[in-house]
């Protein structure tokens, strides 16, 4: 129904620039999640798409039509807010019907649309209640109902689940995913929760300080993070980083502490300062991985999570902590020295200066 094109969009408040030039094309029916730490400008970008914030520079087009100068109501969008933003004095029915009433839709059609939304969201028994008589999850469903009755071209979500408890969050996440694929409406979804992002998204835009660090499918973002920021932000526990230097052969990296790792693909740039990354889940007992550089990890802390055991430790002679995620059956005690090795092809190489991915 609608594509969204974000072209070199910038946003400044007075002197401070909070969105520093973002480009992104979102396909029809795609679910794009904007993920990033608090304050990185996710909401600001979403609100510019919604028309709630003026666009300082650049262009946003919805369905091929530039919407920079259109009012929110003329953009054919619907938005779900973090705090639900339901009208407290209106019943669930009136909350959902309000937008349609303003549009001047005939009463019978409004009634049909609201009843249909209530059926999809299982809100039938609550139509006469006021928002304050509903639980958090029900309120959020009303907010979604208000969005879907309008049959918009675009759904916008701003951290819609962050006020719910963990269990409800999981449940609503599934529900949102189901609804979105059922209705096939192009969606932008803001969150700082990577699990939400990974599970909901067709593609994720990882944002940091007003720039889009990477746009890619969840697996791309996990497997080939475009920068140290993305690498550190996606995945829990976070990726281990080791500062080092490219060897003369352009294939091996010597890291602080004297170890040397050989990369699957070369990156040239001999002698360059680099950051080598490896995820905790890709460190395995050294005897399982032949011909790999062995890391001798002195264990400082053991977190037994049941399915996994997360080991915090240090390589002799280096300062940075290294985490490893071992199977829950691993027997590890504090003070042990574990011989670990990275799985083949699971090393990530970043330029130490720019933080951008080099190869591997």
């Amino acid at each position, binding site marked *: 129904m609608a594509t969204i094109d974000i072209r070199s969009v910038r946003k400044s408040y007075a002197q401070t620039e909070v969105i520093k030039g973002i480009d992104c094309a979102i396909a029809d029916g795609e679910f794009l999640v904007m993920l990033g730490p608090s304050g990185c400008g996710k909401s600001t970008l979403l609100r510019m798409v919604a028309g*709630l914030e003026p666009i300082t520079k650049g262009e946003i087009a919805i369905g091929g039509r530039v919407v920079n100068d259109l009012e929110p109501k003329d953009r054919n969008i619907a*938005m779900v807010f973090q705090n639900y933003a339901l009208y407290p004095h209106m019943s669930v029915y009136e909350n959902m019907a309000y*937008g349609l009433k303003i549009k001047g839709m005939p009463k019978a059609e409004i009634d049909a649309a609201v009843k249909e939304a209530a059926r999809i969201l299982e809100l039938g028994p609550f139509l006469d209640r006021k928002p304050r008589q509903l639980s958090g999850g029900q309120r959020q469903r009303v907010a979604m109902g*208000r969005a879907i009755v309008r049959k918009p071209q675009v759904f916008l979500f701003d951290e819609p689940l962050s006020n719910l408890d963990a269990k409800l969050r999981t449940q609503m996440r599934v529900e949102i995913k189901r609804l979105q694929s059922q209705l096939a409406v192009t969606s932008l979804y803001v969150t700082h929760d990577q699990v939400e992002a990974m599970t909901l998204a067709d593609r994720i835009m990882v944002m940091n300080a007003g720039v889009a660090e990477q746009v890619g499918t969840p697996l791309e973002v996990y497997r080939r993070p475009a920068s140290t920021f993305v690498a550190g932000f996606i995945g829990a526990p976070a990726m281990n980083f080791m500062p080092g230097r490219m060897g003369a052969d352009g294939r091996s990296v010597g890291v602080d502490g004297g170890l040397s790792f050989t990369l699957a693909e070369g990156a040239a740039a001999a002698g360059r300062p680099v950051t080598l990354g490896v995820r905790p889940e890709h460190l395995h007992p050294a005897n399982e991985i032949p011909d790999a550089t062995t890391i001798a990890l002195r264990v400082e802390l053991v977190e037994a999570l049941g399915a996994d055991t997360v080991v915090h430790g240090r390589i002799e002679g280096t300062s940075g902590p290294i985490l490893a995620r071992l199977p829950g059956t691993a027997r590890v005690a504090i003070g042990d020295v574990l011989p670990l090795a990275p799985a083949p092809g699971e090393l990530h190489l970043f330029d130490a200066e720019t933080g951008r991915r080099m190869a591997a």
Partner: protein
Amino acid sequence: MIARRSWTDAIPHLVLILGVAVFAFPIYVALVGSTWDAGTIGRGRLPLVPGPDGWANYDQALFGDRGGRISYVPVSQMMWNSFVMAMVITVGKIVISLLSAYAVAFFRFPGRMVFFWMIFITLMLPVEVRIVPTFEVISDLGMVNTFAGLTVPLIASATATLLFRQFFLTIPDELVEAAKIDGAGPMRFFFDVVLPLSRTNIAALFVILFIYGWNQYLWPLLVTSTREMETIVIGITKMLGTSDAQTDWNLIMATTILALLPPVAVVIAMMRTFVKGLVDGDK
């Protein structure tokens, strides 16, 4: 346990009963006084039980000509004047302050804070302070002895504007934005969302402002000179002072009781709304 509970209940009750007695006793005396003839009260020995003349007193106060004495306006006329004055002041103030508070709270326009502070400063100048210049203006406009002259200067003040502004600031931005996306323009948002949410505040203010208007003394005294425009508060004070013969205490007390009724009626009418607001008021 039960004994203790009744003991701790007793003290607040005692205090309340004492308080009610202190406040209610003078009203009771007035009520009783309005049912005796002037002679009985005049002798200074007012019985504390109702007397036989209530009907006659009220009838005479409301509609009577008071035995042909000059310069007399029936209480019904004065009550009507007071009622119109209080009502116009109340409604006028609420409407104007709702609108100005809406502008100041929800819109960014040049000089917004300047206007806000200008409104705020008028709070510091009560009617009495600006009474002379105000009278000058009203009389130049030819509004002496009119309802307009009686009410307009009292409508312009900031108390309610400030109150509504503070309330409006508690309406979450997200709600405003949700309405924008729903396509509600500023006026629609005002009538469909802001106004219904303000109901409790409006009801409370209505009571306060109605009583404020009803009790006005100095300004009506100044701006009305004809008998037809006299308000009840002024009427009562005149009954007290000007009488050359015996003071008609029975009529004064009947008038006082009558003067109480409209504010009481307003309180009772509005009570339901703001009690409902308090009960509903959880977020």
